């Protein structure tokens, strides 16, 4: 073989799960100092492959080579010893412990046989953080006091501290704001310059094109092909990923807004720590239009939505639905008035992961006919509806009775969408409807939303993805520190202005004329 051996090589990896061939003869190599992106839809087998590499899952066939030598990885400690580090999508940090505690956990610096030497550990961590360009990290801060972006850096720091030369990041940007993503990429480039290899798992085409040296696309457990960013574009990658041509832009068509459905006036609400995070919101959504709320996560969007749907009692203000005052009504009464809601956190609020698909599909309607009469559930009606929704919304599942937790993220979201869109609704609230989903699922959900709008449903969209808000909305409002600081129509909205409003709450002096007051 010519040239140096790749830092990491996987040959013919195959993994069969009951009913699913998760990895089918996958081969992949990562050179030293290379950022190699692994692109694929939800459920394509990316995570399985990386779990095999990290020793969390054993392959049925195939071999792994590190620096050209065959390696046996039976458990994560083997992987760590070989210099492979992993940053999971859901962080593996202990919130109540300090940064230093988390980083050294399992590899503590000792003073003698019993005593910890945390001072030395903290010094080492500070030096390392400096090298990686992580500024402003105090090793004695508790993890729970850090932002999501900072926590992710701690995960990276933890891996490097353990001597990782190959870093696997599973969808690292799914939880980050655009600014944090940009900063994360700076970190990647620095790591690459120092010779660290990075495997970057993603389904976001633009990010992959921006940061990767090479892109390998996986579909249904197989490698479809590899590309260099210069040789390809988003359309080709999307097609490789999904297996058919995908429309990356939304064909929104014309909207025909009618009477006002939702009317919110002077709404105030507190968050769980009793801080006022919604501070006087006025908004109106009309039948047959989509109002999108753009904003950096944590500016009161979630609390605003919860106050509207009856999961949080507003401290002031009114919510009116088609002329009826629904302020402070319980969640069930709000639903009965015609409000459906796709929550931001699908696993925490939207689904009962342990329960079968059938029950999840009637989670918000089980108490009504035909699904029950009196207190007796009508199993036949529930199953018929479930079968219909699974077919209509193309939910990929071996059966309707498996637990919702066994589905991929995209299919879990389709499950919620099927349930909420299927109802007889007047107002549909979509909170981060496509977070963490692949292009195919995003396209599907966007189309469904447009169809719902054209049926005359009023839609309130909240999303941290600015592109999503801009593409889907007939009107765009920007939320900043608990207030809607500006509202635009789809025609007059400009990306830069909205970005600036999201970040600062103020439009740049030149763009100020374009911004109306609060809606």
């Amino acid at each position, binding site marked *: 073989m010519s040239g140096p051996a790749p830092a990491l090589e996987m040959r013919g990896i195959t993994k069969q799960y009951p009913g699913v061939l998760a990895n089918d003869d996958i081969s992949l190599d990562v050179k030293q100092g290379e950022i190699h992106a692994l692109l694929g839809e939800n459920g394509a087998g990316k995570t399985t492959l990386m779990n095999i590499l990290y020793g969390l899952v054993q392959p049925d066939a195939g071999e792994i080579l590190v620096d050209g030598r065959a390696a046996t990885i039976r458990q994560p400690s083997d992987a760590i010893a070989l210099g492979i580090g992993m940053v999971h999508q859901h962080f593996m940090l202990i919130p109540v412990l300090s940064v230093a505690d988390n980083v050294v956990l399992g590899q503590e610096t000792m003073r003698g046989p019993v005593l910890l030497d945390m001072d030395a550990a903290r010094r080492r961590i500070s030096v390392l953080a400096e090298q990686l360009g992580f500024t402003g990290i105090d090793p004695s801060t508790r993890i729970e006091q850090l932002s999501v972006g900072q926590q992710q850096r701690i995960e990276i720091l933890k891996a490097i501290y353990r001597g990782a030369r190959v870093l696997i990041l599973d969808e690292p940007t799914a939880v980050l704001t655009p600014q944090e993503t940009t900063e994360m990429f700076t970190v990647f480039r620095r790591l690459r310059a120092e010779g660290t290899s990075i495997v970057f798992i993603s389904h976001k085409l633009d990010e992959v094109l921006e940061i990767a040296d090479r892109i390998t696309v996986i579909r249904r457990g197989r490698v479809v092909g590899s590309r260099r960013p210069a040789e390809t574009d988003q359309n080709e990658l999307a097609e490789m990923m999904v297996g058919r041509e995908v429309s990356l832009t939304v064909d929104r068509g014309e909207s025909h807004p009618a009477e006002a459905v939702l009317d919110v006036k002077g709404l105030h609400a507190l968050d769980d720590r009793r801080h006022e995070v919604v501070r006087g919101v006025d908004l109106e959504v009309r039948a047959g239009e989509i109002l999108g709320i753009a904003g950096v996560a944590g500016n009161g969007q979630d609390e605003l939505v919860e106050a509207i749907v009856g999961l949080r009692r507003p401290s002031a203000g009114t919510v009116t639905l088609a002329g009826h005052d629904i302020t402070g009504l319980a969640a*069930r009464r709000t639903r009965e008035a015609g409000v459906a*809601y796709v929550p931001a956190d699908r696993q925490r609020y*939207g689904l*009962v992961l*342990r*329960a079968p698909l059938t029950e999840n599909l009637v989670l918000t309607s089980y*108490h009504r006919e035909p699904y029950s009469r009196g*207190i*007796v559930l009508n199993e036949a009606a529930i199953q018929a509806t479930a079968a219909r929704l699974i077919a209509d919304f193309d939910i990929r599942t071996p059966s309707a009775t498996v637990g919702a937790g066994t589905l991929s993220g995209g299919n879990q979201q389709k499950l919620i969408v099927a349930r909420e869109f299927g109802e007889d609704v007047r107002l549909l609230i979509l909170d981060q409807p496509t977070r963490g989903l692949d292009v195919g699922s995003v396209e599907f959900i966007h189309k469904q939303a447009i169809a719902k709008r054209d049926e005359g449903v009023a839609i309130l969209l909240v999303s941290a993805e600015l592109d999503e808000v801009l593409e889907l909305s007939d009107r765009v409002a920007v939320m900043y520190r608990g207030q809607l600081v500006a509202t635009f129509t789809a025609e007059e909205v400009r990306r830069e202005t909205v970005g600036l409003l999201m970040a600062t709450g103020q439009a740049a002096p030149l763009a100020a004329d374009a911004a109306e007051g609060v809606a």
Partner: protein
Amino acid sequence: MTARQQAPGRLVALWRVAALPVLAILLALIVAAMVIIVADWATTGTVNLLLPVYAYANLLTGSFGDPGLWAKGNFNAIVNTFVASAPLVLGGLAIGLGFKGGLFNIGVAGQFLVGAFTAAVVGANLATAPMLVAMPVSLLAGVAAGALYAFIPGILKARTGAHEVVTTIMLNNVATLLLAWAVTDVVGDPTQSFPRTADIGNAALPVLFGRNFHLGIVIALLAVPIVAWLLNRTTTGFEIRTTGANPNAARYAGIRPVVIITLTMTLSGLLAGLAGSIQMLGVIGFYASGISASVGFDSITVALLGRTNPVGIMFAAFLFGAFRAGAPLMQINTSVPIEIIDIIQALIILFLTADVIIRTVFRLRAAKPGLEEMATVTRTWGEGVAR
């Protein structure tokens, strides 16, 4: 799908659920056999490898009888097993229902005592009333008392987040001591030589069969399909299961966890009170301080062994009832003490909870994490209440 295609799938599915409990029982019996051998060696100085076989054989005969006795129409052994199983069925259902709703009701012991006490007091007062009045009224009084006693930790959990394990353990002590006082100083029968309530007379559950196959056994058996139906076929059951599996999603769906948590705990206490009532009106006959509430704790093992499935709980309760009913014969014939049953029971719990042991010994695939019920037992205590 045809029935023929379904059949193997069902068996596989059944084994998937039953493997862990069945293997836990098997392993517990093997380990207990070693304990029997060693304990015997320590007292007699000889090693008798066959002793466990004799002991288990006598245990079996003690709990089910033998063909010779059956031919003579003597089914006392098997009836005793039914009698011992009935309160365990109800207690197991009480714990299992709680687990489904995400609650660990350790208070079954206390609710059992309160139910038994109330049934005894009401029964003693109605001892001379017609049986068709005395018996159902006493029974319902005991049931209501158990439910009411569980309502307290239920509402505390729902309203304030007070952890039900802590409150029910405390309420168990409150029940024991309060009832001891009551039976000594308030409702005791002065004509008796020790503090106890008067005879229940006509309030006793009628014996239907054999020496003591009482109506309570039928009630316990009927409770199994009723609880299964409630949990799986009603909106209330849907709400209980949803709240237990994900209280946040329940709230999102418009279910009020405060109501459901209180209701689940109350229903659990209702079953525990029923267990106490049938034991009182079918077996004991009077309340005296110090009657055994071990049913409350055995029920936890039963519920875990039955994997919170009502039918599974019924089988687990019968196993334990058989152990309890058969143990005396084992002790008489082989001098292996009754306490070995407690050891077996403890070992079963150990192997169920530390299921890694079972999976390693029997090379089961670790496809699924252990008992989901254990999540309720070990759930983070700081979680508090879903508002």
